């Protein structure tokens, strides 16, 4: 049987990859996808604990996290489209000023 720590370690590594991606990427859409990866790593932890402790609460949390991720996708992609419309670029370095 798989120890719980395997799942926790995998989740930690996935989360770290997501953090590294957010830091090193300059494309707004790729940063956005790295954030989704971090949310998924947390979801894996939730499901692992929920399953190993026999409690359904963790999986309900996962449901809510997925809802937040969907809302984030809608709003975040709307912001990305608005930025692209104003600056003709998705590079976050080009969007470092609040004014146009």
């Amino acid at each position, binding site marked *: *049987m798989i120890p719980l720590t395997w799942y926790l370690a995998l989740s930690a590594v996935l989360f770290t990859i997501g953090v590294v991606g957010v830091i090193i990427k300059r494309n707004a859409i790729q940063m956005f996808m790295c954030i989704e990866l971090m949310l998924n790593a947390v979801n894996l932890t939730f499901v692992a604990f929920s399953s190993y402790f026999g409690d359904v609460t963790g999986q309900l949390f996962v449901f*809510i996290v997925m809802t937040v991720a969907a809302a984030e996708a809608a709003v975040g992609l709307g912001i990305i489209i608005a930025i692209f419309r104003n600056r003709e670029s998705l590079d976050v370095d080009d969007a470092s000023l609040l004014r146009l």
Partner: protein
Amino acid sequence: MDWFPTVTQLLFVLFGGMALGCAVAMVAQRNPLYSAISLVGVFVSLACLYVLLQAPFIAAIQVIVYAGAIMVLVIFVIMLLNVEEEARRPLRLTYLIPVGVLLAAVLVGEAAFMLQLGSGSARITPVAPAASDVGLTASIGTGMFTKYLLPFEVTSVLILMALVGAITLARQGRTPLLAAPGAPTEETPVLTTGRGQPAITPGDTAATGRAFAREQIEREESAAAAPAARAREAEERGEG
């Protein structure tokens, strides 16, 4: 045969490795579309891990919501915006690389220590998932609509807010939204000179606006006076 991995462990290594490989590929790719495809790979691998954890409902909505809905949206935006590949740029702040390596080593050591501590602790006694009904749709629905009804309703409000926000953000320019049913439809006030071209052009000032309004009023008055004058003339001719 204690060292021999069970089928479950082999599957964990397979899907965990797939998830890690796809995640690394996602970060390493410079083309956003390849990144998105790699991310779909991560989602599917995680769904398989959820099945291993006996959470079939979460696995299903992982595939439906993440791999189905969210990634379609992301790929749609990538296609819509015609995103170019990320340009290679020289590294900056190279003298900080040793510091980064050191901090990463500290982080890895800390995580390994905590995992070791957690596995040896007697306070938490995780039991390996037996054939339970925790992850089934019925038990999740029961929990969601009894004990956790308020978070569920708050979630629906959140989705409504996201919907309105996304529409507001992505709206092109200042086109008016649809009028409420029953409300008088508002015509966009465009002044024309009567010959089709707009009366007000960029650069016009208040003085030109006033002159235009005076011209309009005069034309209307003369148009209103014309039939009456014709009628009076006809009367005079009839008498004569």
